[in-house]
């Protein structure tokens, strides 16, 4: 974008934030789960990476392979089932043999249900943390027949969580209308109603260049946080979403006995000097009880 502004200036990221920040958020979640394992079980953290075979997971796997050891966790292996795998018992057996007590999951398709269900049925002694798009949906509990208990995934919204004053009315209205908690795709609402419409009104015309100039310099609240478009090192607009404390962070949610509750950010600090972030309604992360035997 910075290199060819005139070609790409009409393109804006609405949701979610880019894959670099998705990985950063996942690492924050791994950090929380790893600290919980150390505190509660007093054992070293051994992490397995399980990612569906898809182009979007490749860069995340590479980043995870490089970062997990730096976080003080032992990386025990990488498994890549098909995104539509209907049986992952082979992978689960190998993961259990590896001694992993934390599984970094990167799933967007049906394998997320298969993996969670079979891991729960087999009581694999490890907590699942990462991205599991199916686990973001209300239907996950029924789809896994309750075996997806304690699965921890990134999500945009959760019942009872207030990132700011816009969150609660948005989530409640969405649930009333569609019967489930909004996922990240629902942020199209914010991109249009809170991003584009006020910019057109401020421009007072439909002149695209005037609207772009306004959008590039706005900062505004959306139900998931605050939107501010980034600039690169040279100060050129990237039209990418700013991630971090005070802006967009997303949530870490966990299935706890049939309810999808939010467990992150809870006293989270992006860096030692960064402000602590906690959203209203957070609860502590729970490890599967069968890990404690």
């Amino acid at each position, binding site marked *: 974008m910075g290199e060819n502004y005139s070609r790409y200036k009409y393109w804006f990221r609405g949701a979610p934030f880019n894959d670099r920040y998705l990985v950063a958020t996942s690492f924050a979640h791994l950090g929380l789960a790893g600290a919980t394992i150390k505190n509660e079980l007093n054992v070293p953290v051994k992490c397995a990476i399980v990612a569906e*075979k898809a182009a979007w997971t490749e860069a995340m796997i590479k980043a995870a392979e490089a970062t997990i050891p730096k976080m003080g966790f032992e990386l025990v292996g990488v498994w890549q089932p098909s995104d*539509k795998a209907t049986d992952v018992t082979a*992978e689960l057996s190998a993961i259990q043999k590896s001694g992993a007590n934390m599984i970094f999951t990167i799933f967007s398709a049906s394998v997320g249900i298969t993996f969670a269900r079979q891991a729960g049925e087999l009581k694999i002694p490890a907590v699942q943390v990462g991205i599991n798009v199916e686990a973001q949906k209300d239907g996950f509990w029924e789809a896994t027949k309750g075996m997806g208990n304690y699965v921890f995934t990134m999500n945009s919204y959760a019942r009872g969580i207030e990132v700011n004053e816009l969150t609660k009315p948005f989530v409640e209205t969405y649930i009333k209308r569609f019967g489930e908690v909004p996922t990240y795709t629902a942020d199209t609402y914010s991109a249009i109603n809170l991003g584009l419409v006020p910019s057109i009104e401020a421009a007072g015309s439909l002149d695209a260049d005037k609207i772009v100039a306004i959008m590039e310099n706005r900062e505004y609240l959306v139900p998931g946080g605050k939107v501010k478009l980034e600039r690169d090192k040279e100060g050129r607009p990237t039209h990418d979403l700013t991630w971090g404390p005070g802006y967009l962070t997303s949530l870490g949610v966990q299935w706890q006995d049939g309810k999808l509750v939010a467990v992150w950010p809870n006293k989270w600090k992006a860096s030692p000097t960064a402000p602590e972030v906690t959203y209203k309604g957070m609860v502590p992360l729970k490890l599967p009880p069968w890990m404690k035997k």
Partner: protein
Amino acid sequence: MNIIITGLITGSMLALLAISFSLIFGVARIVNIAHTAFYMVAAYCIFSLTGKFGLNPVAGMMIAVVVVTVFGLLAYKFLIDPIREHEAAVLIATIALAMIFQEAVMLIYTGDYRTVSALIEGYFIVTGVKVFYQQVLTFGVVLVVLALLWFLLMKTKLGLAIRSTAEDREVANLMGMNDSRLAMITMGISVALAGFTGAVLAPLTVLSPFMWMEPLIIMMAVVVLGGLGSIKGSFVAAYILGFTEALVVFMIPKGAFLKGSVALTIMILVLLLRPEGLFGISFEEER
């Protein structure tokens, strides 16, 4: 141990699908692309009957098989039979039928993934490997059905007629066998077996309107490997590919997604080196 169990279960499922597919191809030269779509319909029937209507899972399975068989017979009577002599037309019509089933399922159940409860929950440990009770039950039931099918084909008059027609349709016809009626009966048996596979596999898999596509491709690989139309060939090839898939998953963890590709590579190699498959025949004239 895991390889053996996974291989046996995958192989058994493929055997049921491939044998039933081979059966109707052998008898009536019908390439039923909708075969695995019937398997999908059975799985969704069980989902509805047990989940929505609270029916006993075994009763749900039996009803699902009956429903699918009726669908199969209707499809044969009104869609396949009128165009049966035109193999390409049958192929296209059954593709269309599969797509209709897919879209109907999508309309009724949406694209959300669904699951069915296991008949027996839990697992046991053999030599350090956790094995689901449902997997063992499924394997046992599949073996019983395969044995019943063998009995039907080898020890009954109907089986003799089916085998005779599969071997040489014209001679069987000259000997007084009603070719059309036999084709319809075989279609019923074939679809019932596909439905049964869907029924027993439903608790072990994730249901989606597209779940018929992947097994279709692997089933085709089995049928080609075994020899088109050969029931014995399908049986042996199903276990070869079942164990191949299990080996790929266990031996190459990072390449678990390759299991389907390996099966298809074997199919292509067989086509190149031995086009008739393991137990097939080279040319139509040999029939």
